[in-house]
């Protein structure tokens, strides 16, 4: 079951240590900013990146970005420390660490960016780096498929997002986020509000894996477990949530905003919780609870009440802490036993006591038991849900159901593997994880407990300033407390425990039911395959018809374009009167033209090679006669010489070439004839129209005047060739040289191959 075969060799050298130190330092740096930010300051740093396009690389540290930054760098440090042991001695560890660190930096950039385009740049950087991380198991088809799926789905959303951000920038007249947020009323009233909102939501929902774009996320679990812990607790998937949160002050407060977020969030939360319960792979189960959390967070962002916002902020932190801890725990289990299958695992509590305790604490927080932070989060969720003015029952119901299911899942993931009695054979004999791998789960779980017992540690430094980013005033934040008195949220909490425990007890029969239901329901993951093969089939189909490989068709389309293009333009734009004037033409000239025409007709229709070559010669001579008659001796001589050479070359080549048509093969092509006559006709019409316009002879007059006095030549044509337009002639002889070289090369390679 494990995708990432943990190696027992140790030591990744610098590649292992340096990233930990970097991210640790970043975490400490952000910690030092906490007092300033909680005092109400906002830090801003800006660099004119592309002033021509109004794009700045500007960064903003406020409550929201600081909270995110702390979660990202803090969890990042622990994950990197963990990975160094988890993937000890892996040949590609250096790349892994590089990608993970880059991902972390991109994520930090994303949450700190104060410019729409800057934000987008980092957004896409997380897409790229996560693609590389998800595809870490790149030698398996599954790994590659998952990576592509994540990239494609989030990439599609990102393009919509880009369009949305550009439109937002154009509408607001600035790309600086803080300036845009100050113009909230203007934006909500703007005619582009709805399109922009839809585009932004498309970006956010794909990134945050909201239903119906959720399917890529569980597949992304193909990545090594530490990656999952990082991407799916505090970072990647939270990017979408972050975007919604960031844009909240400018966009929230409309019905569209409220209902889109509420419905998508609620549906995702409930739907995902059921799917979570359906899983037997611990990591998959966690992945789906991540979806549930994201749904819940989105749901709360729909609101503008201070309860909802406080609930959002608290649950954001809670979820990051316990989810990262649990993912890492699952990694420990996997590492120790070689499996993540819930139905096999059991009884690990005795051999892995520290892991078990960390798991238990994190799971209790997840399940929302007091005195952990999860409890406070849950209470606030209910309070927030009830604060929804129009449909409190719907929202509270959704939250209740989701919470209860989450409790059950917590039991499945963090209780059963440790405390259930089992006879199943484990792939490996388990033992306790090393300290580097325990540090993460233990610290994160402990944080959940400490903040739960003493919520003030969180309230002033982080929650209040973050709430202030939404509502403008830190005092708007609701108080975080374990005991809020006997109220409706408390009753809902109790109901959750009862329902959750009930579901846990019956989770195995329920799971079978869910599996059956899930199999019957439309499968988005299979839909993805269908989409891809449909895309390929369509591409294949259109290419087969266009790029058919048949030269005749290419030429036909090209000439058809000429006919349609020129003819169509003539019809639409008109070219005036082009009636040809055929009076007063000498008989001699009629004869020459007749000669050319007859030669042309024979060349076009004959099936005899000799006749064709002879006809070409006749046409060539006819054209030369035109040149002679109309005072162009140089051209005429050249034409005659060249035509002779052409005929000779063709004749020589034909000694080896077959007849024009195979025996009995007809080459009668009515449609080609129609096209050909059409093109010929269009050319004649255009030329007639051109001849009806006056010709400006300035250039020629200049040549006539200067040819002898200044260029010392009496043959004006030659003077033009070697002096006035010598550069043309130079290019021309270059063509001749290269043509002969190329032809020579062609002939010589033939000779070579034959002798071989």
């Amino acid at each position: 079951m494990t995708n990432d075969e943990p190696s027992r060799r140790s030591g990744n050298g610098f590649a292992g240590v340096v990233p930990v130190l970097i991210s640790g330092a970043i975490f400490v740096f952000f910690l030092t900013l906490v007092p300033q930010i909680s005092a109400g300051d906002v830090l801003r740093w800006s660099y004119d990146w592309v002033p021509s396009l109004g794009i700045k690389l500007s960064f903003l540290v406020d409550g929201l970005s600081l909270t995110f930054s702390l979660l990202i760098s803090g969890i990042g440090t622990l994950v990197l420390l963990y990975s160094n042991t988890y993937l000890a001695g892996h040949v590609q560890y250096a790349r892994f660490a590089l990608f993970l660190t880059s991902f972390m930096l991109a994520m930090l950039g994303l949450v700190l960016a104060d410019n729409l385009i800057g934000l987008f740049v980092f957004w896409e950087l997380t897409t790229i780096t996560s693609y590389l991380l998800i595809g870490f198991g790149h030698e398996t088809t599954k790994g590659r498929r998952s990576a592509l799926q994540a990239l494609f789905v989030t990439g599609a959303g990102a393009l919509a997002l880009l369009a949305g951000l550009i439109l937002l920038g154009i509408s607001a007249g600035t790309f600086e986020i803080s300036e845009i947020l100050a113009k909230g009323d203007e934006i909500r009233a703007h005619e582009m509000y709805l399109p922009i909102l839809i585009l932004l939501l498309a970006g956010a929902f794909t990134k945050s894996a909201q239903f119906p774009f959720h399917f890529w996320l569980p597949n992304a679990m193909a990545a090594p477990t530490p990656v999952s812990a990082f991407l799916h607790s505090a970072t990647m998937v939270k990017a979408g949530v972050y975007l919604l949160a960031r844009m909240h002050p400018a966009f929230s407060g409309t019905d569209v905003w409220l209902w889109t977020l509420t419905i998508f969030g609620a549906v995702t939360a409930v739907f995902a919780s059921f799917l979570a319960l359906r899983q037997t792979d611990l990591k998959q189960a966690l992945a789906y609870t991540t979806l549930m959390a994201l749904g819940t967070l989105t749901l709360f962002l729909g609101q503008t009440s201070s309860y909802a916002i406080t609930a959002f902020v608290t649950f954001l932190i809670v979820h990051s802490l316990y989810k990262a801890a649990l993912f890492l725990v699952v990694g420990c289990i996997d590492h120790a036993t070689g499996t993540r299958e819930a139905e096999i695992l059991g009884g690990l509590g005795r051999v892995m006591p520290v892991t078990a305790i960390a798991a238990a604490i994190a799971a209790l927080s997840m399940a929302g038991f007091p005195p952990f932070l999860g409890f406070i989060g849950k209470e606030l969720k209910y309070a927030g849900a009830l604060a929804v003015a129009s449909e409190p029952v719907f929202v509270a119901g959704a939250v209740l159901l989701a919470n209860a299911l989450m409790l059950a899942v917590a039991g499945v993931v963090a209780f059963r593997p440790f405390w259930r009695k089992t006879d199943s054979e484990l792939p490996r004999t388990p033992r306790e994880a090393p300290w580097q791998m325990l540090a993460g789960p233990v610290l994160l779980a402990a944080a959940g407990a400490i903040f739960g017992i003493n919520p003030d540690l969180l309230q002033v430094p982080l929650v209040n300033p973050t709430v202030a980013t939404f509502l403008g005033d830190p005092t708007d934040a609701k108080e975080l407390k374990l005991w809020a008195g006997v109220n409706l949220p408390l009753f809902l909490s109790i109901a959750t425990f009862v329902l959750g425990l009930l579901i846990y007890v019956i989770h195995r029969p329920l799971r079978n039911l869910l599996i059956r239901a899930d199999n019957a329901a439309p499968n988005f993951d299979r839909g993805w395959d269908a989409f891809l093969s449909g895309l390929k089939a369509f591409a294949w189909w259109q290419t087969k018809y266009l790029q058919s490989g048949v030269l005749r068709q290419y030429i036909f389309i090209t000439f058809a374009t000429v006919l349609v293009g020129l003819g169509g333009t003539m019809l639409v734009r008109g070219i005036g009167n082009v009636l040809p004037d055929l009076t007063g033409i000498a008989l001699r000239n009629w004869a020459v033209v007749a000669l050319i025409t007859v030669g042309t007709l024979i060349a076009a229709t004959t099936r005899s090679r000799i006749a064709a070559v002879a006809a070409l010669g006749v046409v060539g001579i006819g054209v030369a006669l035109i040149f002679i008659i109309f005072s162009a001796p140089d051209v005429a001589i050249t034409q005659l010489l060249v035509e002779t050479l052409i005929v000779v070359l063709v004749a020589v080549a034909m000694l080896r070439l077959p007849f024009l048509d195979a025996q009995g093969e007809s080459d009668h092509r009515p449609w080609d004839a129609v096209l050909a006559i059409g093109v010929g006709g269009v050319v004649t019409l255009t030329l007639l129209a051109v001849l009806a316009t006056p010709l400006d002879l300035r250039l020629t007059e200049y040549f006539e005047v200067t040819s002898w006095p200044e260029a010392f030549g009496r043959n004006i044509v030659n003077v033009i060739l070697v002096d006035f337009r010598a550069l043309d002639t130079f290019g021309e002889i270059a063509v001749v040289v290269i043509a002969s070289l190329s032809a020579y090369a062609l002939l010589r390679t033939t000779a070579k191959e034959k002798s071989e």
Partner: protein
Amino acid sequence: MSWTLTLPLVLPFLTAVAAFLLRANPAGRWVSVVGSALLLIAAGSLMLETLRAGVVVGQMGNWPAPFGITLVADLLSAIMVVITAITALAVSVYALADIDRRMEMLGYHALFNVLIAGVVGAFLTGDLFNLYVWFEVMLISSFGLLILGGRKEQIDGGIKYVTLNLVSTILFLSGIGLLYGMTGTLNLADLSLAVEEVENKGLLTVVAVMFMIAFGVKAALFPLFFWLPAAYHTPAFSVSAVFAGLLTKVGVYALIRMFTLVFDHDIGFTHEILLWVAALTMITGVLGAAAQSDFRKILSFHIVSQIGYMILGLALYTPLALVGAVFYLVHHIVVKANLFLIAGIAQRLTGSTELSRIGGLYKSAPLLAVLFLIPAFSLAGFPPLSGFWAKYVLVQATLEVEAWILAGVALAVGLLTIYSMTKIWAEAFWKKHPEGIDPTPDKLDGPTRAALLLPVGFLATLTIIIGFFPQPFVALAEASAAQLLDPTAYVTAVLGGSE
């Protein structure tokens, strides 16, 4: 003096002659490298001169415009010449390891340098007929390079390439004849004034469409692109890299030049056509790529698709859109040439370019993997690489004029580009080699490895520089777009500067 203008054109010719006469000498192969390096210097000084003077003009043979042939470099021309020189240098170094002795004896270096000369000439000339001549110089050298080596698919691809390009050539030539018959002049600046005098505007539009089709074939626009995917995967890798980078761009350049300078009398018609052609080009190209399973064929179809973006910029005809077009041109040359070079290395290491038959490069050749990711993700438009800015500017330009469908197309095509690039990545790099071959670069000797990897690294670095520090490039593209939209400076420099 006009020599800064002339040198970038003369140098490749000198290099070609020298390289050919020295072809039997082992040192002959270095002539190309040295020549390209000198070309880069010359192009750089032309760029500086252009930045200083705005428009640099040289009257060949000292004959005043519009009577003789004028060479002109405005910013767009100078930018294109510099980027041509960069590509030439990268490819000529790569060719040291890629081109075998037999091809050299048959004149590879002469063909290559004359090709570059033709490209530079096309960018620098201010004369329509002279443009035709440079197109032909370029075309005939590309014919030679395409078939050099003489494998079956080269001949087959060559037939399609040659026939379709010849059709385009004839159209171009006829168009010149017609335009001359109406205006009596060939000088582009003079033409831009002369067409205003033409009374029969309908006829002028017809001729404009004729040029559009002729250049459309060169630029590989829908539905005239067939020659490109039919041939670009067949020649030597150096050759397909330089083709991919430069040839279609000359067509795009010609379109930009003609449809900003000369044919701007009926924008509502001509540029509207271009707009939809651009969209269709983007879509068919990217779908074509999605249907392919060969490294180079995928890349070839993507050229078509991305030409669509550049034409989109031209067709929108706003300052920002033209910035996008120019920026896209530059970015795309660097990136596309590089990807073809990488395809060559991948083929060397794994034995094929057919994706189902190769793999394992990520594990065995991590440096190459990085070097691939940079241009590939840049092509797909990921920030902060050069392709992102190109795409960004164009999308913004499209949104500004509220062309929603086109913006949607541009973005969706970007997504499908990601799909193709990751297909190459997943198959050639991530997947195990199906025959268990270890594609390690260690099996190449040191000089070969250096000759192959240095140019790739150089171009990748350039991609990163453009991506991370886009401001100077955007500013340059802006200035260039301003010149294109208001050609007064160009026209006065050419016509007035002669007195």
